[in-house]
């Protein structure tokens, strides 16, 4: 079929990738699949941080706050109160989005350094509150007994099963993100990122957009946190400290904040690398920091950006 050869090749590639993705849990070790599940969860949370940085120029170090709210909402409403799964997830989202709106409105008037450090301060406040308010969060003892997610009788109680829940969700969110970028709002975001003054002249409400994006980012963080809780069935404060927020920022920058699937690359990197380095002890924290520095100086568009640029150059050379 020579006339459709150009059309079938990419489709074949997509199908092959899909098959590869679907086969992984059956060929990889349970531990590896567990890591891949975490990569999926972090992709979701990291997507929130990535588009906020890439499209709005906002460094968000508060994602751990919403990750925690999502997880603790599930722990509270499902484990403690015995309510169905959707209630936990939905309440996490509602709480996170509301908080993002209330806190975001004043602090998003700040810009640059001030805003980034304000989000860092928020992350620290939440870290302390999660610890101190142990009547809600169980403090360091945590809350256990979180039920597994069950859809139509199928329980997502193993890494392999959860893998088939988290990754479709992540993929769906990437598609929605793509929709956002190529819409009226997406244009406005990129406009305000490039030239805020000119954007204002065209009637773009920069502040309102920033708050909306912050709320969206919080929603993603919360969703990731809720899924996390339903996966590990036990949550405690250690998972929601500032280094979690730093991981999310790290994976966003490494993966590339200007490509839609960048967060996936970054998430894979930060979940799988510590595995390889585990022989060397606690060195992965340093490697991550060094990778962040290297990315900022040498690869500002992240792995995703590097791949996209390479792909563009190949296409223009062939054409």
């Amino acid at each position, binding site marked *: 079929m020579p006339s459709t050869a150009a059309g079938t090749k990419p489709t074949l590639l997509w199908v092959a990738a899909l098959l590869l993705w679907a086969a992984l849990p059956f060929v990889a070790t349970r531990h590896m699949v567990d890591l891949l599940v975490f990569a999926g969860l972090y992709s979701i949370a990291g997507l929130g941080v990535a588009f906020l940085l890439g499209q709005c120029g906002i460094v968000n170090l508060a994602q751990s706050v919403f990750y925690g709210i999502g997880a603790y909402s599930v722990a509270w409403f499902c484990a403690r109160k015995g309510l169905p799964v959707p209630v936990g997830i939905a309440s996490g989202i509602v709480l996170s989005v509301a908080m993002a709106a209330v806190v975001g409105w004043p602090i998003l008037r700040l810009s640059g350094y001030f805003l980034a450090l304000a989000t860092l301060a928020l992350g620290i406040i939440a870290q302390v509150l999660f610890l101190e308010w142990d009547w809600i969060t169980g403090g360091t003892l945590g809350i256990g007994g979180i039920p597994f997610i069950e859809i139509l009788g199928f329980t997502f109680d193993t890494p392999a099963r959860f893998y088939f829940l988290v990754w479709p969700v992540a993929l769906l969110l990437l598609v929605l993100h793509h929709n*956002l970028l190529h819409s009226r*709002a997406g*244009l406005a975001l990129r406009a305000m990122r*490039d030239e805020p*003054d000119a954007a204002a002249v065209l009637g773009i409400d920069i502040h309102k957009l920033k708050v909306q994006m912050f709320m969206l980012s919080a929603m993603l963080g919360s969703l990731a946190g809720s899924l996390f809780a339903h996966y590990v069935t036990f949550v405690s404060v250690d998972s929601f400290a500032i280094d979690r927020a730093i991981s999310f920022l790290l994976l966003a920058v490494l993966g590339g904040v200007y490509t839609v699937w960048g967060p996936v690359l970054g998430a894979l990197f930060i979940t799988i690398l510590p595995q390889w380095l585990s022989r060397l002890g606690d060195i992965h924290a340093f490697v991550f920091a060094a990778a962040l520095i290297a990315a900022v100086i040498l690869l500002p568009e992240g792995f995703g950006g590097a791949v996209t640029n390479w792909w563009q150059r190949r296409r223009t050379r062939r054409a």
Partner: protein
Amino acid sequence: MDKTPQTTPALLRISGISHKFGGLQVLDGVDFEVADGSLTGLIGPNGAGKSTLFNIVSGFLLPQHGRVLFDERDVTRDSVRARSHAGLVRTFQTPKVFAGLTVRENLMTGYYRHLRSGTAGNILRSPRSRQDMAAMHARALEAGERFSLQGVMDRPAGQVPAGMQRLVELARAWVSEPRLLLLDEPSSGLNSAEIAQMREALTQLNDAGMTILLVSHDMDLVDIADEVHVLCFGSIIASGTMAQVKIDHAVRQAYLGV
């Protein structure tokens, strides 16, 4: 064109604007009007206060004294966004195109304020969202043809030569259907061929009904204007047609020291 000021409503009225920077009185009681449908020029030597006045009119600076009236409404304290929704659109001395967007996308953003689809709808690709995108595409296409930008529509705006960037900015402003278009030194950085193109483009826009206020120190560009105000050392020293202003005594003193 003979306009009788009393019957043609002033679209823009500047009244008693004064502003001081540090110890320097940059603007001192500036009064002038821009008639609806006119092509008005504001000229003056560098340092006369043109940029300050421009920023005050467009909403980037709050004046210490005086008022800005747009369509008889006091907009002195209105935000840049509010003014844009009222139809007051400006360009910048160094063209501010959205470098990361293609020329087409730049033009599309011009139509932003006329559309209503919300962020949620955009994410879910609602019908209204798709309509909005179609409308933006259509306007961008129109603008591309009108301003001869077809060749660069899909190039990132940051990679387009400077003279063309200015055209992109102008086209984008046209897309937004302004009531009043404010141009800030539109000829700076252009060669004489490009200035001639600019004159042509602006004259055509005005003939088609757009009110334009042109701020420049370049006499050759401003002579397309119906009416010209001369700003010197913080106040308007002369108003009238270009010919009248050129022979005005005060103007000659200021410019030529005669």
